[in-house]
């Protein structure tokens, strides 16, 4: 059975190109991708994760308001009973910030992994496979069945 991930851009951010590439890459790697598109609210992420029984929630943010947009996000997930791996990636701070600090900020907000904009999809896919204990064989099966 294919593993399901929910993907979207949070807040009022409209940068769509990154998730378009991610959707394609995660699909090609055998995942079922529920793409919420841009400008998705915390609730939309949570509801989609429930509806589709997602194992991972992938949040994208490019425009520099990620920190505000993610305040309380993990509470909302918990309220909906979502127990998925959560990743966030993109340009997470305003300006030329230091990434290690950004990582800490978002880990403190509850994200399991934090990626910068230099991350290629492959890296995130590899990490998710590790986190979901997906072996290559299972992955390959997944690729075939989707």
């Amino acid at each position, binding site marked *: 059975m294919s593993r399901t991930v929910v993907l979207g851009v949070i807040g009022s*951010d409209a940068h769509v*190109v990154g998730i378009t*590439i991610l959707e394609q890459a995660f699909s090609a790697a055998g995942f079922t991708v529920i793409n919420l598109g841009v400008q998705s609210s915390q609730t939309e992420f949570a509801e989609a994760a429930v509806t589709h029984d997602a194992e991972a929630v992938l949040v994208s943010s490019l*425009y*520099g308001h990620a920190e505000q947009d993610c305040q309380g996000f993990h509470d909302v997930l918990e309220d909906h009973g979502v127990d998925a791996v959560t990743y966030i990636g993109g340009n997470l701070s*305003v*300006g030329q910030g230091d990434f290690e600090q950004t990582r800490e900020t978002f880990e403190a907000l509850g994200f399991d992994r934090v990626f910068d904009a230099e991350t290629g999809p492959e890296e995130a896919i590899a990490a998710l496979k590790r986190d979901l204990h997906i072996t290559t064989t299972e992955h390959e099966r997944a690729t075939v069945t989707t």
Partner: protein
Amino acid sequence: MIRDERIPSEQLQRIDEELRAGWPTGQAVDFEEAIRYHESLPAHKRFADVLETADQPLLQPRAGVPRLEDQIELLRYLHGEGEADLLPTTIDSYTRDNEYAKAQEGLENARESGTDTLNGFPAVNHGIDGCRALIDSVDAPIEVRHGTPDARLLAAITFAGGFQSFEGGPISYNIPYTKRHDLATTIEHWQFVDRLAGAYTERGVRINREPFGPLTGTLVPPSIAITVMVLEGLLAATQGVRSLTLGYGQVGNVVQDVAALRALRSLGEEYLPDEVCVTTVFHEWMGGFPPDEARANGVISLGGMTAAIARPDKVITKSPQEFQGVPTKEANAAGLRTTRQIIDMALEQQIDIDGIEDEQALIERETHALMESVFDHGDGDVARGTIQAFDAGALDVPFAPSDSARGAVLPARDDDGRVRILEFGDLAMDDDIREVHAARLARRAETEGRKQSFRMVADDVDAISDGRLIGRPNGGGNRAD
């Protein structure tokens, strides 16, 4: 249903009053007093005049920070150290969403903590006095740049606040910038903005309007961008706008970019009424940048070089820190000076490249087809035609996040790096044109020994940030090292 007709003055006034009641700073707007303020401004702060009389491309950066004093300092720096000819004030994202309360919170936060969590200047919150303090403190014309679908209050306040140029439009600030705004509503909102600009214009204060040419910034075929520019231009002209700057974002192929800028100018002149003064603006590469300042300087310079050949009226520069986040003022000024240097070194040279005429002819043919389809869809009415053409996919923008566009068009580069259309969807282009694109892309596929697919598109999206123009398999490289 909405039509391309001038808003009657009573209606203008009524909406204006309603709007201004929506946020405290709105109350202070007084049109007559605003006219007097504009009239008091010296010649070198009159945006339209400065732009329209320049004899070489003027440079303008993007820049906006939340606090007034910081914005003053930033713009002075970009004018002084960056040698910018024209200045911007980029608005924050909350304001773009009309969330003035959140913007207020962000602004107060910034004032207290000294760190900026807003990504721009919340002009509505600063109000007329704040805007004028900025205009008064900086010695060059300043434009409002934003990305706001409903920019009516922003326009009312910034026009009264002394700004004489305003970016955006109903399509270009909808389709690339939002998901859920429908086109009919954004057209209506921008008719108001344009009518307001028209009202100032009639009183001798020519507010310059600049539709946002780059759209999604990502491999947008020139004819699509130009069509949107002409449509927004027509809508604006109806409302009385007389100074229009049509935009175009660099795709990175010099011949195509020069051809597109020439086509933009000639189609703008062809479609727009004579009483409108049409100028053009070239945006340095608007897609993903390399994560490396040195490489980014190469991208920026290719833009400068292209501008020197095409000679648009204005160039919007990028900074070497584009990849990372909002640039420091030093990096922003550096992007300006790098661009200036290469433009000034190349500008006086005669550089006539073969093939520009052919490419321009193709772009014009495509644009004519799209425009015709819009007119058809609207039975001659541009507003209706725009809505219906987008609805039908006859007009479309690649990578559009908006529900109002099909987003079915997929672009890819041909073997020479020019942006072609791989998937047309229902785009209103006839078979002849489609065949030209197909043939060019087939040649590339052959060169690369692979099929045309989304993989190719994705490779092209990443190519420039990965260090090349065309997304060849394995980076295109038989590199020697």
